[in-house]
């Protein structure tokens, strides 16, 4: 019952439905991933605040922890439901992938289920039992949330890594006959991708939280409470940024060695050659990258640590098997640009801290920081576009084409329309509710928050 009907059905796939399915997947994944990053990063940062509050007795930290926890409650709920949709969509949109390879990538998803469970259980305890538990057990109840969040990011990205570097199975006549689930999970792409993703989650969470306080400070609320609310998440994210750029370099080397077509698309290289320049900007027109700034030998040097290294161009691949160059090229440029910009911001803060023991006083620093959350999210989305669009036309690299995996049922376009409408509503409502939470005066919300009552904030 595997692929007999599949090939026949694939002929019937309508272009519009295929496109709709891909867009729907991209929309729901791109939406979920933001929430997922906050879900991985925020609990850790909140725990740091709660812990500092406990150790120093400073109500600033305690109040921050309370308020972040309240936002986390909302974000987790939205993250959980948007993730559930994804597991439906794997089957609704890509039955051709799941019917053959569902069992190959099943293990990480099953383990992810365990991690979600742990996360949801301890989140329930952490959020709702703040006053039923003494401080230390309450802090400890938060630790599994962090561990499970990181673990779930790891597991799910191993599944994606497998789609980039499929290993651990053998196929006979279109049927999977033997599977080594561990080998599939720990495929060659797993190390760079999971590390890059987990660091991205902390960057996104840290910069996004810092952005909120940067905006408040720009509006004149510069008391100690807001400064702390800015500095703690900013410090976490800024410390990770340089590491992330190193890891990004590792990811790029990996792609250069293992997915040369993707690399060629990322860099807009059409002709195979040695000593290939690095292209900045530019648009691909008729099999040529135009109007790009060229850095001589740059790409060969960066990709293989050798200015004369050979780079395989897109000309080696038939046009039908190439990913869309402009999308991948620009997405890559945007990710790298955002990464470097965030690095500059982090260095600015570090230098000022080193010299004066305080954050830069310039309003420009706050303005830039107010945008840092957006920049991190942009890098995140762009990175996924590089990874996923750069993999096209394969859904499983070199093994299964996206068009052979899509659900052949008619009318996927309408599903996409419906899903888009719901997501627009969800986005509006989420932003609205989060703004309510952020704007509300930062006073303790309920009488039971006895540990922070009486702490004045402007």
């Amino acid at each position, binding site marked *: 019952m595997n692929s007999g009907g599949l090939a026949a059905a694939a002929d019937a796939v309508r272009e519009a439905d295929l496109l709709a399915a891909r867009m729907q997947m991209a929309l729901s994944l791109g939406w979920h991933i933001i929430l997922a990053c906050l879900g991985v990063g925020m609990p850790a940062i909140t725990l740091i605040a709660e812990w500092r509050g406990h150790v120093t007795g400073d109500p600033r930290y305690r109040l921050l922890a309370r308020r972040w*926890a309240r936002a986390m409650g909302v974000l987790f709920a939205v993250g959980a439901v948007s993730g559930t949709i994804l597991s439906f969509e794997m089957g609704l949109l890509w039955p051709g992938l799941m019917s053959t390879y569902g069992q190959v990538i099943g293990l990480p998803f099953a383990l992810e289920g*365990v991690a979600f469970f742990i996360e949801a259980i301890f989140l329930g*305890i952490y959020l709702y039992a703040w*006053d039923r538990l003494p401080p230390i057990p309450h802090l400890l109840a938060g630790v599994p949330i962090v561990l499970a969040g990181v673990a779930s990011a790891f597991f799910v990205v191993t599944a994606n890594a497998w789609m980039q570097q499929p290993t651990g199975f053998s196929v006979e006549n279109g049927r999977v006959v033997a599977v080594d*689930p561990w080998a599939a999970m720990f495929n060659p792409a797993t190390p760079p991708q999971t590390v890059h993703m987990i660091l991205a989650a902390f960057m996104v969470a840290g910069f996004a939280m810092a952005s909120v306080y940067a905006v408040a400070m720009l509006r004149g609320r510069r008391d100690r409470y807001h400064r702390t609310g800015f500095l703690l998440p900013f410090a976490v994210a800024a410390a990770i940024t340089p590491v992330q750029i190193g890891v990004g370099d590792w990811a790029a080397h990996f792609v250069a060695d293992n997915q040369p077509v993707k690399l060629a698309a990322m860099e807009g290289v059409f002709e195979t050659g040695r000593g290939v320049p690095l292209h900045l900007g530019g648009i691909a027109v008729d099999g040529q990258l135009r109007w790009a700034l060229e850095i001589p030998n740059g790409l060969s040097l960066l990709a293989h640590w050798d200015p004369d290294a050979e780079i395989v161009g897109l000309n080696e691949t038939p046009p039908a098997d190439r990913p869309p160059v402009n999308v991948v090229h620009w997405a890559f440029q945007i990710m790298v640009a955002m990464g470097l910009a965030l690095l500059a911001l982090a260095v600015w803060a570090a230098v000022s801290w080193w010299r004066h023991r305080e954050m830069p006083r310039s309003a420009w620093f706050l303005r830039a920081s107010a945008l840092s959350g957006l920049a991190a999210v942009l890098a995140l989305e762009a990175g996924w576009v590089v990874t996923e669009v750069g993999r096209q036309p394969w859904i499983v690299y070199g093994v299964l084409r996206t068009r052979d995996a899509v659900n052949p049922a008619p009318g996927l376009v309408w599903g996409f329309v419906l899903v888009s409408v719901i997501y627009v509503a969800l986005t509006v409502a989420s932003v609205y509710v989060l703004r309510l939470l952020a704007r509300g005066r930062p006073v303790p919300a309920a009488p*039971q928050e006895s540990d922070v009552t009486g702490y004045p904030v402007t």
Partner: protein
Amino acid sequence: MAELMLAVIWLGLTAYVLFGGADFGAGVWDLIAGNEERGRAQRGLVEHSIGPVWEANHVWLIFVIVLTWTGFPGVFAAVASTLYIPLTLVALGIIARGAAFAFRKVSEELWQRRLFGATFAFSSLVTPFFLGTVAGALASGRVPPGIARGDLVTSWLNPTSLVAGALAVGVTAYLAAVYLTRDAQRGGETALAETFRGRALAAGAVTGVLSALGLVVLRADAPALFRELTSGRALPLVALSVVAGVVSLVLLWRRAYLAVRVTAALAVIGLLWGWGVGWYPWLLPGVSVRDGAATPAVLTVTLWAMAGGAVLLLPSLWWLYTTFQRAHPADGSDSSTPV
């Protein structure tokens, strides 16, 4: 191995119906709780009872989905592709419900609470209905193997599916009313407990009638399953369900709210496992458990991973439920209000 996997999936499904289902049912009661004034106490109880646990309850569904595609990949693909319309609606219902519930909790203005509350309550009604139609499609053998081979519409718009959808709503509402009765009693809110007792009795009676109706429909629409249920292997489970259902109504009548939790759950378990046993060894028409299963290595590794996970999960779940089922602290402050 394949059987064990199936059993684990069915256990997950049972847990989802018993815990997650009750959350949906609570939303249904939220829907008919009346206007803002009259409904406040009921809505408060609903929010209070499901707030800390709904996310954990909801993960059971993810387990069922993921284990199905791991253990029975072809079956998963066949079901998802043929039934993509009701399943898309289920997915959207889940999104609307979870998000609206969380949003309502943190919004203060009346119109916001109304909007989010209505979304929450309405999707609580619609989602189990469509899940029920999916169950009906499977029970009546309308999902053939292969990708999108079944009829996209009649596979889930047919007598069995409609009854199953209604039954799903009934079961969730019934379970929720039973659980909420006890929660209200423990909270010392006698009047509220009485309200939910009446609702539980009504929902129980309606669900009983729907189950009987379901049997009649199955007899015409899915005779093989009907035979198994009424005279085959599944008969003891069906009998268990009927007996437990009747006992529950008696217990409710006599206000034994804690005991009725057990019997109500048993009635639902009998129904679910009766269906499962009556169906076995077929998963889809012409596809048995053995035919549909993943390779042995996948089944073994996944089952061991689940066993390892269970070692972590069971104590954690225990802690979660006991933390929130314990009586409130003596000072009377309602400390499970969200932070």
